[in-house]
């Protein structure tokens, strides 16, 4: 009996010390991105970019041991909500980083911002959370969705294109993309074509483009749709019509598009050849670790980790006082890979945007490269509606 008591006491002591060690200010971050389905490559880049940052900082953000819990939202809002609640209630994470897609963001925004965790989006930046529904617990390290499309609209306008043919998949982001383009383009829109989401053969649409003979073509075709469109656009001999796009020719699709995409134009807040020391180190480390060229998804997730790191340094590693933590986050006191970075009132970035061109590098890999700056210190069009102090 006595021995039993000893054993129990010893076990209790071990468990207590173990839990005490576990509770010793370990930082927990839930990373929720899309890791299955055709878009898995985007989430994979974000995951790899974030993990690379944590690894580069020695497994610690702001000097605190960091555990990253990666979950897959499956690009399903309902699944994402369940998983994000698991991260908050079971894993008790301090930060939720994610997601990639705007529809998932709409679903997880409230559960996270109502909890004790802070939500940092490394990609999705919808207009509603930039404007009236802005929230002090929500930060974005990417952009407001419209801005990337507006870059191309501005370029088309400045370039003096008179007639432009627009095409996007028939869903919210597709419609937003064309609206974003048109917000800056004042010329004539020859035709707006919406294709079913997931369409892979664009031969009918390409024949229409050829018949319309526009000055330029703008599209938003993420993932496999973009791979197909670009290949078929070139096969149809339409390359003399400038191909402007967003999220269609980036580092996630270029490995499959290869030479077919070279010379095609896109908009971005960064490119792998952005010239600053921290970015050169990042691109080299990413390529060495994952054998792929990083895209904006990886870059923005990396910046999200740097953002958390900077805030925790300012608070001395503490996450307990949320107001102090949020104030530290809002300062954005870190060396962004894209160079300049600061937050606007709505906690979306205020940053430069560039026209980028797909190119083949000397080592045979493909990447986007900066052509010219289109917007300087751009504030998104919804920030004025945000009443957050």
């Amino acid at each position, binding site marked *: 009996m006595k021995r039993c008591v000893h054993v129990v006491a010893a076990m209790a002591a071990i468990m207590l010390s173990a839990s005490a060690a576990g509770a010793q200010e370990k930082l927990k971050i839930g990373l929720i991105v899309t*890791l*299955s*389905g*055709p878009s*898995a*490559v985007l989430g*994979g880049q974000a995951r790899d970019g974030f993990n690379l940052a944590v690894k580069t900082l020695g497994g610690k953000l702001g000097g605190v041991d960091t555990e990253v819990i990666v979950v897959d939202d499956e690009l399903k809002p309902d699944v994402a909500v369940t998983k994000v609640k698991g991260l908050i209630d079971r894993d008790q994470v301090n930060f939720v980083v994610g997601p990639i897609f705007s529809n998932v963001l709409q679903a997880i925004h409230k559960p996270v911002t109502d909890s004790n965790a802070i939500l940092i989006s490394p990609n999705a930046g919808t207009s509603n959370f930039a404007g009236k529904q802005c929230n002090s617990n929500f930060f974005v390290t990417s952009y407001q969705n419209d801005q990337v499309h507006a870059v191309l609209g501005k370029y088309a306008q400045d370039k003096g294109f008179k007639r432009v043919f627009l095409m996007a998949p*028939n869903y919210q982001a597709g419609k937003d993309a064309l609206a974003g383009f048109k917000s800056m383009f004042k010329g004539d829109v020859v035709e*707006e074509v*919406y*294709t*079913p989401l*997931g369409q*892979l*053969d664009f*031969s*009918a*649409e*390409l*024949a*229409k483009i*050829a*018949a319309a*003979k526009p000055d330029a073509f703008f599209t938003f075709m993420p*993932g*496999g749709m973009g*791979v*197909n469109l670009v*290949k*078929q656009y070139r*096969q*149809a*001999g*339409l390359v003399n019509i400038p191909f402007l796009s967003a999220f269609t020719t980036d580092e*996630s*699709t270029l*490995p*499959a*598009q*290869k030479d077919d995409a070279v010379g095609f134009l896109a908009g971005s807040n960064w490119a792998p050849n952005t010239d600053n020391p921290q970015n050169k180190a990042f691109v080299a480390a990413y390529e060495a670790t994952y054998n*792929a060229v990083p895209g904006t998804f990886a870059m923005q997730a990396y910046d999200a980790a740097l953002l958390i790191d900077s805030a925790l340094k300012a608070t001395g590693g503490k996450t307990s006082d949320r107001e102090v933590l949020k104030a530290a986050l809002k300062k954005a006191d870190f060396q962004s890979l894209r160079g300049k970075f600061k937050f606007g009132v709505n906690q979306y970035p205020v940053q430069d945007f560039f026209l980028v061109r797909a190119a083949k590098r000397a080592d045979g890999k493909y990447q986007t490269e900066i052509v010219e700056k289109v917007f300087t210190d751009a504030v998104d069009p919804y920030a004025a509606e945000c009443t957050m102090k």
Partner: protein
Amino acid sequence: MSTALLLVQTLNGLQLGILLFLIAAGLTLVFGVMDFINLAHGVQYMIGAYLAAMFCAWTGSFWAGIALTLPAALAFGLLLEVLVFRHLYGRDHLDQVLATLGLIIFLNQAVKTVWGAAPLSVPMPDLLSGSIALMDGLLYPVYRIALIGVGLATAGVLYLLINCTRVGMLVRAGATNAPMVSALGVDIGRLFMIVFGFGAMLAGFAGAMVAPILSVEPGMGDNLLILTFVVIVIGGIGSIRGAFVAALMVGLIDTLGRAFGPQLLRLVLAPAAASQTGRSLAPMLIYILMAAVLFYRPSGLFPVKQ
């Protein structure tokens, strides 16, 4: 609407139809002869595309790649038959749907594990990489024309196989009354295996043929599978001829509807409303066609006589 544009769009429709036919041919046989619902048929199309991507990269030649893909797709189909499908023939349709749906999920993930989630591409063979100017400003790739030719040739060969060979006769007989064929001393299990393997090979072939124009990615067969089921339902389950006619109809209606629907509607509606309606109506056209066919001919255009 110029005649050139109409011609080009008709070719596009034909090409989609041919592609659908290659996939639907196997599916309709499996469904018709074995009374087996194989949702995983689209996955075999995907596997064909991935095998082609792999073999083309290995051998550096498109032709060698295709030549290797065919037996590999056949072997894969037979492997699935032995491992999974064989155990499902006697079960009811719900079991088959559940099992083959599971197979879709499993194989989509498996493909991602083996080849990665990023889309792959297959370079176009030099011989077919040229293009013809069919209309002002638009080059029509020779490859797409070749695709139509190959599809038509395959249809011809299939027609001969089904109508002029002993195996074809058994397949036709099996589609009409499988238990009777079995009672007459034909090894129905082996017949099923041949049909199944052949169907898988056709789907794989279709996947390999489109690999140079479409991206090869996980889940690429899932969207096509639905269209394929529409095709075999319109054509009449078990009928190769029905599948051929229905595939061309679906391909043409879908493409021409998308291309010209808004213009036609503009004759009766305001431009904005026409483009809005046309956009929503075009993807529905084939389902409207299917509903109409089912209303007038519930067992499809070319029903197999029971």
